[in-house]
């Protein structure tokens, strides 16, 4: 935290009083979120004779578990990457657009959020079929020699997931880019910096906080998604979240379910923490 930001913070007494505004939220989260989470954690380290790590030992010694973890990480990273590559330019365009154009873009990004994931996933089922739009397009343009099914493939899953999570990549980047003074790039240009140099030394460092929150949002959501893989790839392909769901709902195996849930939680949290740490390092003096 810089000196300027620190000096802007309200003085002790006032800050303490304002903090009471968070009490309802904290109370609510404690009851419906933290408490069940503690039960879940406790369940994963409890055996017939009390505390034990045997569930984890058992889980990690099974090669199938490693395949599920790898599936989760791979799909999460690919989805995040697709969202980043598509979302970053869109966020910049949106932040720099003016008037009606900006409103139109914002609506186009936010409106799809009001459509349920299940509806979207079913729509993707139609698009990704062997005789779906994507297949027809790729055959028509000669990229594919014959129609193929994308549904129930990893490509289809990543495409669908990226579609659902894209706004969560765009919006944090957009809100940061919007605050960057366009004069900064002009100042860089008049100092002799090429467009690429300006992007690297001015734009990117200033956008980093938005990039990190976008990545953290999309990654944590895509490693823990349940409905989308269930509908777009099916039971053959398991991720940590779907396995957790199956353990609880189908197999009635609370021990396995709570173990996979904890593994997923640790995975997601550590990636988010690592990315914000990395951002601080890269951000230099920020």
């Amino acid at each position, binding site marked *: 935290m*810089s*000196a*300027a*930001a620190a000096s802007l913070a309200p003085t002790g007494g006032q800050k303490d009083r304002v903090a009471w505004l968070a009490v309802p939220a904290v109370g609510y989260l404690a009851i419906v979120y933290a408490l069940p989470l503690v039960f879940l954690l406790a369940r994963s380290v409890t055996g017939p004779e009390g505390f034990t790590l045997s569930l984890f030992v058992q889980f990690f010694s099974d090669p199938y578990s490693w395949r599920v973890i790898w599936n989760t990480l791979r799909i999460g990273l690919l989805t995040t990457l697709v969202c980043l590559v598509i979302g970053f330019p869109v966020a910049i365009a949106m932040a720099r657009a003016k008037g009606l154009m900006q409103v139109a873009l914002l609506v186009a990004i936010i409106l799809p959020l009001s459509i349920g994931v299940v509806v979207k996933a079913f729509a993707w089922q139609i698009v990704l079929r062997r005789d779906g739009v994507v297949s027809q397009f790729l055959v028509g343009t000669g990229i594919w020699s014959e129609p193929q099914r994308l549904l129930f493939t990893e490509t289809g899953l990543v495409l669908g997931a990226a579609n659902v999570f894209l706004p969560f990549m765009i919006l944090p980047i957009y809100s940061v880019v919007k605050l960057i*003074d366009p*004069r*900064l790039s*002009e*100042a*860089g*240009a*008049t*100092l*002799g*910096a*090429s*467009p690429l*140099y300006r992007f690297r*030394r*001015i734009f990117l*460092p*200033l956008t980093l906080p938005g990039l990190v929150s976008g990545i953290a949002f999309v990654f944590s959501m895509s490693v823990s998604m349940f409905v989308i893989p269930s509908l777009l790839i099916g039971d053959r392909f398991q991720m940590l979240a779907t396995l957790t769901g199956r353990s609880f709902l189908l197999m009635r195996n609370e021990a396995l379910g709570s173990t996979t849930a904890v593994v997923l939680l640790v995975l997601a949290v550590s990636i988010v923490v690592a990315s914000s740490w990395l951002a601080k390092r890269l*951000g*230099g*003096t*920020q």
Partner: protein
Amino acid sequence: MTETASPAFLDVRKAAKAFGATTVLDGVDLAVARGEFVSLLGPSGCGKTTLLRIVAGLLSSDSGAVVLDGVDISAKPPHHRDVGVVFQSYALFPHLTVAENVAFGLEARGAPKDEIRATVTRFLDLIHMSALADRSVRALSGGQQQRVAVARALAVKPKLMLLDEPFSALDRKLRETMQIELKRLLREVGTTAIFVTHDQDEALMMSDRIAVMNRGRIEQLADPATIYKRPATPFALEFVGLSTRLTGTVVEASGEGEVLIDTTHGRIRAPGRFVAGSPVLAAVRPELMAFGETAGENTIRATLSDVVFQGSRIQAHFEAPEDRPIQIESVAGIPGGAVPGAEMALSWRVADTLLYPAPAP
């Protein structure tokens, strides 16, 4: 890149720019000599910042050319122009320290590390901010930010410096200090500079020459004394300094380049060539008017309405039938302790009378 035989260091030729149906710059010519400090002075919307941005390459002109040091730079992007800019908002890089901001341009140009370090040290010294080198620019005051912005632009030794109202965010006292300091800094570095401002005092005080701009045109380009003493147009007269203005009609033109004018305050004479019957605007600067009659010169009578004490001098305002002020500035004070309501004679030299065709209403 065409070599052009131009004596001017910066030569802006017929620069024109329109935004939609609005003409912002109406074919402006501007020639600036090497080492000169030229101000673009005018009200907001007169096109001065647009002209500046065109010279910097941040905006493309619809037509016309910009020639710098004999090279046509019209088609060059800003990072190949060697034209430094100090922005009104300073536009310092918020994620960098003071020293990193000053070093930015040199690093972008791939200057050797030793040279960068030496230049940054020198410029931080010049702006008296060596002690704050590693401070974040966000922690600086307005005046300090302004100095860093100037140092950052000067550090790459640009051929030309453009300053876009760099003092407008500073309070009056600090502004005066910074004006003197900027002049000193530019002189020490030996840079040619164009300075955009709407503040006439600032322009008069700092410039070698002033370009008075109005509605996308340069109305007058001259040294500050000429701008003040001999404004070329009614706009330049009104925009720079105070004046008493009288509208009237020429009744008689003499052979010696002098005309006799009927005004609402009586007959006056003024140097100029107009045919009888022309509507004209006559004007005189307040400090050139005196109380009392002067034989052989212009004299009018007016009713005193207000006296304003201004320390070293007083300003006397008179009732005017037209909506134009009559005012005198005098270091001597009001003669005979006249009070508001008193009718007084005011006089000034015929030679000091400025005369223009009456501007269209």
